[in-house]
């Protein structure tokens, strides 16, 4: 499996992807910081606490990297069908299931890790900035931190799983465009059902999406083994 993942990395160079990750992390840091500053100055109904800051970061990071995941899936999985390279790939003495699972594992692992690292990075920068700008007035206690760590982990898992839905939809029609369009539709719909100003998605919605994603991915991989490669 690991050697298959390495081969995928050889085929699809991800340098550009990682560059985009860095840039979007910087952009998101600035956005969250600006919003927090705004809220602390304007005296709106939102009280700028650490939890608000971290929630805001998390929902932004999740939103961004689920879309990134869809782009990777459109390229690495659906793209192989569209470019017809599957007609070579599937003549190798490796089961289609295994090939697809290793592709999915690569993308999901990258997405999961990037979501966590980005959360950590942005939150640490915010904590650092707060020392100077003091937009959060409360002290940073260990319950806040441990609570956030748990939240970040759980949501990273759920988000990674729900990122499989656009893939399944794209695979139905063998169309990368479907994958990209559907990820935007799903993300904007779930944000519209949000929990207040930090745009965190309701847990029920997030969990449902994750389950749909998991079932869809299983069905897609099962089906791929029996499919004709046109």
């Amino acid at each position: 499996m690991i050697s298959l993942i390495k081969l995928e990395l050889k085929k699809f160079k991800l340098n550009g992807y990682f560059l985009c990750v860095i840039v979007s992390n910087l952009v998101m840091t600035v956005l969250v910081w600006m919003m927090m500053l705004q809220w602390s100055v304007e005296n709106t109904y939102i009280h700028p606490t650490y939890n608000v800051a971290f929630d805001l970061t998390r929902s932004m990071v999740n939103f961004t990297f689920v879309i990134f995941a869809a782009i990777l899936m459109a390229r690495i999985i659906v793209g192989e069908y569209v470019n017809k390279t599957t007609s070579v790939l599937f003549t190798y003495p490796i089961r289609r299931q295994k090939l697809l699972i290793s592709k999915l594992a690569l993308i999901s692992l990258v997405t999961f890790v990037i979501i966590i690292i980005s959360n950590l990075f942005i939150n640490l920068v915010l904590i650092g900035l707060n020392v100077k700008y003091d937009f959060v007035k409360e002290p940073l206690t260990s319950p806040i931190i441990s609570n956030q760590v748990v939240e970040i982990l759980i949501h990273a898992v759920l988000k990674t799983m729900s990122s499989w839905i656009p893939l399944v939809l794209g695979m139905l029609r063998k169309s990368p465009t479907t994958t990209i369009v559907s990820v935007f539709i799903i993300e904007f719909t779930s944000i519209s059902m949000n929990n207040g100003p930090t745009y965190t998605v309701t847990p029920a919605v997030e969990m449902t999406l994750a389950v749909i994603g998991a079932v869809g991915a299983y069905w897609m991989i099962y089906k791929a083994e029996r499919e004709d490669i046109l």
Partner: protein
Amino acid sequence: MTYVVSTSRLSKNLSGNNILSDVNLHIKKGEIYGLLGLNGAGKTSVMKLLTGLWKPTEGVIELFGERLITGDCKSKKRIGSLIDYPIFYEKLTARENLELHCAYMGYHDHRSIDEALALVGLTVEGAKTVKSYSLGMKQRLGLARAILTRPELLLLDEPINGLDPVGLKNMRNLISALSKEYGMTVFLTSHLLRELELIANTIGVIREGKLIREVAMENIQRDWTEYIELVTKDVVKAVSILSNKLEMCNFKLINESTIRIYDLSLPQPEKIVRTLILNGVDIGEIRRKNQTLEDYFLNLLQGSGNT
């Protein structure tokens, strides 16, 4: 007789269309088997079924004596294939593509990459990305990939498409050499009879999804190729002498001055000449000819032959 490839009642139905029906294919070890058919007859479909890219609607495929089952990959290690349009990871170089192929096939002798590139004459271009390749070059690179791991069975779908005359000749030589030196079994398709005739040991004819004939070239050459062509101004008289005095019946009037005699077993050509001249028939020309198999196969392909 053990076959490297054999199918029985192999059928494929795609969205209501019968693409293949009841194909019984038999490919012996070490032979070069040519599948001949017009465009759309189902040649590529057979290839896709053999490589497992398509699943049969009905029927059984046996490769190396074992039944091919969905998800079973053992036999794939022993097969090299070039099917349809040659497809590569276009952003990678030719060499990188071949390295990937080796890695996926679990073949770790990397010297074979240089050898394969040299065999198809792409040593210099190996470092270029495949994107910049012409169709002919891709076709050759596809062949390099197919033979890279020294497979026991080589499946080539229209390998001569897009090749220039020199490339064509090289391809022919290469296929024969692979068959002779490595004992590879080669299964190739074409719509060009001449090309198959030059290299194949056995030819299968496929028409509208049905395999209508499998013939060994040796037999067919013995049965069909020899005849005597006679050119004379007095055809009517010649015909009557042939049938009455020489008691021949297997001959054919080609045009008003030419007769072809297929019945070669009975009288010797000298006897035919002597009898005709003694009976006052002037002979313009007489010669023994090897017919290309065109007529025979054209009949089969177009459906006017007896099937």
